[in-house]
């Protein structure tokens, strides 16, 4: 089995390189033809495997379901088995599986970029260049030069607030105002990759004092970043550090919630996707990862209010990502920063 896979790999890689060279010589038409050919082969092999297993923390449940449905519509005969859980939880489960030698996962999709550095270090990720990855905006291509992982989703941590709140907090530091005592909701960096990204960003911008001051307002600590949306929609809390995707989806359904891109920067969460070396369904995994760069994928996630990966699909906010002002953590900073932040968070907030 492993031999088979690597042979397909090598062949695929040669084809692709040949395709790329050909494209350089002959223009985009040839590249597309080579890709279509490759896609067909992957699809045939994937159909034999029957399904792909995908663990994701990229977006809310409804978005993951939309991706599954779009994939199954495009590739009938290949089932998608997925779970949606917070980044640290799926990462822990993956490590537990790796330690025990359990092989069940094909595609790992976390919201903590540093997970991929650790997995790469352990040598468990398969190097693979998905089809269509060139459709990504330039600044998000090749986030790993060795091709063990690629961009899978883009999201922001922004200020979330109940629609009754006025005036709306403009900056992250506005949450220190004592009027928010008992009215703030947060996720937990020990569970959520979004929250981990946000905590490291605030820590680097304002120092840890940002959180000691925030703790005085006695925020409610959930687990996932999406807990904040539930709290605000349900009227349990008024403001929070939440996501943009589920909040906008909830707002569109008529719920009393809105978001604010803060003046001191929304935090961009780079959510990568990668395939395991010993994936039980390697071809279905590759087909599924390549699907991330299709128009259908971008449409599916945009429909559920996530930023599309391709520029030919309009953004749900109406503002293209290039026009936004945001803060982006470096992967190696997250690598050390998130585990440290979890420890410090425990001291500051008690959990």
């Amino acid at each position, binding site marked *: 089995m492993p031999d088979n896979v690597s042979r397909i790999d090598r062949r695929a890689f040669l084809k692709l390189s040949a395709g790329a060279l050909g494209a350089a010589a002959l223009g985009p038409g040839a590249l597309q033809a080579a890709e279509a050919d490759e896609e067909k082969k992957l699809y045939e092999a994937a159909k034999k495997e029957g399904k792909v*297993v995908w*663990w994701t923390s990229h977006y*809310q*449940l409804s978005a993951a*379901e939309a991706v599954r449905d779009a994939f199954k519509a495009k590739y009938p005969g290949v*089932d998608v*088995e*997925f*779970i*949606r*859980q*917070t980044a*640290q*939880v799926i*990462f*822990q*489960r993956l*490590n*537990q*599986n790796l*330690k*025990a*030698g*359990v092989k*069940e*996962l094909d595609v790992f999709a976390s919201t903590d970029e540093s997970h991929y550095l650790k997995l790469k270090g352990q040598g468990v990720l398969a190097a693979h260049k998905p089809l269509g990855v060139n459709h990504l905006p330039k600044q998000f291509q090749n986030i790993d030069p060795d091709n063990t992982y690629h961009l899978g989703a883009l999201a922001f941590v922004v200020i979330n607030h109940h629609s009754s709140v006025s005036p709306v907090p403009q900056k992250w530091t506005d949450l220190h105002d004592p009027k928010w005592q*008992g009215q703030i909701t947060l996720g*937990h960096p*020990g*569970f959520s990759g979004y929250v981990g990204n946000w905590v490291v960003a605030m820590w680097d911008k304002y120092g840890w004092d940002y959180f000691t001051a925030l703790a005085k307002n006695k925020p*409610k*600590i*959930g*687990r*996932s970043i*999406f*807990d904040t*949306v*539930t*709290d605000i*929609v*349900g*009227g*349990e*809390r008024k403001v929070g550090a939440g996501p943009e995707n589920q909040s906008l989806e*909830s707002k569109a*359904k008529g*719920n009393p919630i809105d978001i604010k891109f803060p003046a001191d920067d929304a935090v961009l969460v780079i959510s990568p996707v990668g395939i395991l070396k010993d994936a039980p369904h390697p071809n279905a995994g590759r087909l599924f990862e390549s699907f991330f760069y299709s128009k259908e994928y971008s449409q599916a996630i945009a429909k559920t209010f996530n930023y599309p990966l391709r520029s030919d699909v309009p953004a749900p906010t109406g503002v293209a990502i290039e026009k936004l002002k945001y803060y982006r953590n470096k992967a190696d900073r997250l690598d050390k920063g998130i*585990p440290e932040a979890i420890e410090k968070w*425990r*001291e500051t*907030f*008690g*959990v």
Partner: protein
Amino acid sequence: MAESVGSAGGAPALPSAVRKLDPSAAVFGAAALILIFLVVVPLAWIFVASVHSDADETLTLSNYVRAFSRSIYLEPIRNSLVLATAAAVLATFFGTVLSWAVSRTDMPGRGLIRVMVFAAFATPSFLGATAWIFLAAPNSGWLNKIWIAISGAERGPFNIYSLTGAILVIALYSFPYTFAFASSALELVPSDMERSAALLGARWPRITWRITLPLVRPAILAGALLSFLEAIAEFGTPAFLLIPAGKQVITTQLYLFFQYPSRPNLAAAYAVPLLLVTASLFLLQQRLLKKGRFTSIGGKGGVREPFRLGGWRWPLLAVCLVPTVCSLVLPYTALLLTSLSRAWGRGPVPGNLTTQWYRWALVENAAARAAIGHSLSYAAAAATIATVLALFTAYVAQRRLVPGSRLLAFVAMAPFVVPGIILAIGFFSAYARPPLVLYGTAWMLIVAFATRFLPIAYSGTESALRGIDVELENAARTLGSSTLRTFWRITLPLLRRSIVATWLAAFIPSLRELSSAVFLFTPSTAVITNVIFDLSDAGNFEPVSALGVLMMALTFGLIALAYRLFGRTVLFSRGRG
């Protein structure tokens, strides 16, 4: 030979010549081996793991030093002790009042209260905790909103995200222990002394306080200890209610030790003292029960008359309805309404009603659908293993068929004192590494559930066996039948009904088990409780409620079936959830 067996008094030993020729020794030997695999190895692994370093597996005591010197690890222990003590006190109070009212008074609705107590017992407290979030979250809880609407106050009085909230919820689902112990003792206490006191002019409150309750004190204390054990081992409720409050308890801290980078050996060291505490409390409880049994035997022949409460009958019923309404009526209403809502925050208003979450759980979501199937099949497999194993072990122990059979009985009962989360750590340490990797397969959960609920199956089978006359077996053996054949042809048919009851008693708690499942599943082996726990983290309250309602519908459906088939006896088999 029949002569000598009869004189042995209920536990006859076979002559060694017969035993030697018998192939049954091999069968019972296999049962002993399975017990070692299910109970001894995982528990031994906890101790072995606790003295090994997580980094390089060398022998060390540093895990104990680390676990019990840092304040962030000591604080959860303090919280757990406060939580368990307060929950046990409260549960004992509810349990005692209700059992007294149901067993010793002429209060109306006694049968209803009894059924409701049982329903509270069958409900896992993490589901109750979820429902209580809808009811009593500080700002959005329905009870708080109603309070604000009525009183015009700024804020409601309830805050479920607090130690008090968690104490209340756990007490609401553990008072049935005291109820079960106290009511079975109360039903045996004779009324002669009470009547004498009444003749001397004492009224019922004084008689109850000075005579009735002291007589059943050992049973009440035994129930209190069981509630304490239950509360300190609880994982779901603290995870749902105390993490938002910024508080950790022992079990949630153990969960954190398993987060990346996981430190299972440190977790084992952290768990060992808890294990020692629960084990010694259980031994204490057993001693208390023995004393209690002594008291009650004296009164078995006496006449029992209920207290005539007169005008106090209805107020007492009102008091008894408080814990049952809080553990059943309110939470199930909340769960049902939420499961039928598009968005729970909008409340039960027209336009917010939908059955989409049931369709989601049963049709659309493959993971949820698979989990329902897993729950049913794993629980059935676990209950079957536990029942068969309990049958063999109890038979061997009761009839003293092999030397050391008492030890076998002790091993079968041992998991009773092991909190689910700690049992899971033992299973993980033992069977997530070669030579035997069960982790990642259904067997990991099946054997863990079987082990966890083996004591329930064992105690059920043991008491059933005690009720069978050995004369029939002896007759068969005298006529030349082997032990195995006798067991198959005589004992088993006599036990048929109680075997099914035992099976259900192990099946039902397996169906709703969370605390061990949360460590042992992988997404491809997830059960309903895993999916509920996973979904709850992103505030997906509507699908969580739908799954919870489905799980309890299955549970209550089975209980109703069991009740039809076996009557009341099946309802009050004691077990832990």
